[in-house]
């Protein structure tokens, strides 16, 4: 069943909602790994928006090339999220060795 404007709008609203939940969690969480999971939530919301528009282009506007462009950008976003997760978790490990928790409220040594 091709994606109609109802499903498009519902998917976009879901993407915006998940993005907003990610932002609120990022602002109010104190564990660094929870902040990282909120970043992944935001990236997933963006992926949902991209795939929604790719499907809209393919089935509603009858433009399969644009649908492929959306899918490829999703692939790049997932790749960047993987690289970022690897480096970020390595940073968390080395931070954990310094102070025995990951509380971002206590990471104040760079503050003037």
């Amino acid at each position, binding site marked *: 069943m091709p994606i109609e404007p109802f499903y498009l709008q519902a998917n976009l*609203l879901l993407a915006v909602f998940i993005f907003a939940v990610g932002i*609120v969690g990022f602002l109010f969480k104190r564990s660094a*790994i*929870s902040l990282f999971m909120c970043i*992944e939530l935001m990236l997933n919301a963006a992926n949902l928006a991209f795939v929604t528009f790719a499907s809209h282009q393919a089935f509603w506007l009858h433009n399969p*090339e644009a*649908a492929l462009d959306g899918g490829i950008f999703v692939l790049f976003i997932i790749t960047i999220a993987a690289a970022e997760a690897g480096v970020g*978790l390595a940073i968390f490990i080395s931070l954990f060795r310094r102070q025995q928790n990951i509380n971002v409220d206590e990471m104040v040594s760079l503050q003037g």
Partner: protein
Amino acid sequence: MTLHLVLYCLFFAMAAVSAVCVVTSKNTVHSALFLVVTMVALAGNFLLMHQELMAVIQVFVYAGAIMVLFLFVIMLLNLREPDSLPSDFKGRTFLGVALTVVFVGLIGFGVLISRWDVGVSVNDAKAVSMEQQTGGQNLEAGMTEDADEGAKEPASDAGTRSVFYPFANRLLVDYLLPFELMSILLLVAMVGAVVVSRRMLPKG
């Protein structure tokens, strides 16, 4: 009340509820598992939109590799959410809900009042601008209105009928430079992760 609508409502509710539970859960492992549920629900949404390749990539790479890496690190370091202090901001829940409502309201309003059933695609825009340039006449011999000028024909006919062919063709022909840059990025990330998390030996 078709099956498509029922499944869509199921995945919608699963994704929304899991996303809220990621943020509100006190246990870090529970947050990670709720995030996995959110990703799987989004993959279900992708399947309902007939983007099967995206659904498979989401489950394999995102939920299956990145979240497993998260859980490895959480359990390796035994990370947990810090205990709530008395100095915590008291109106956190209300402010969080208010921010979410404002954000979704602003952008959702723009989504709901737009007309999505019409659109100008890039190929139509190219064709329109080419017509304007040549005055509506095809002056050059052999000039076609083929939209994908960058796509090359494959050497053999074996893979052109698979479901991956358009995607792989677009990725490796038109987006070859970003593809190679992604490889370099992953290499740099791997080396950086090993270097950053190395335990420094004491001198002497």
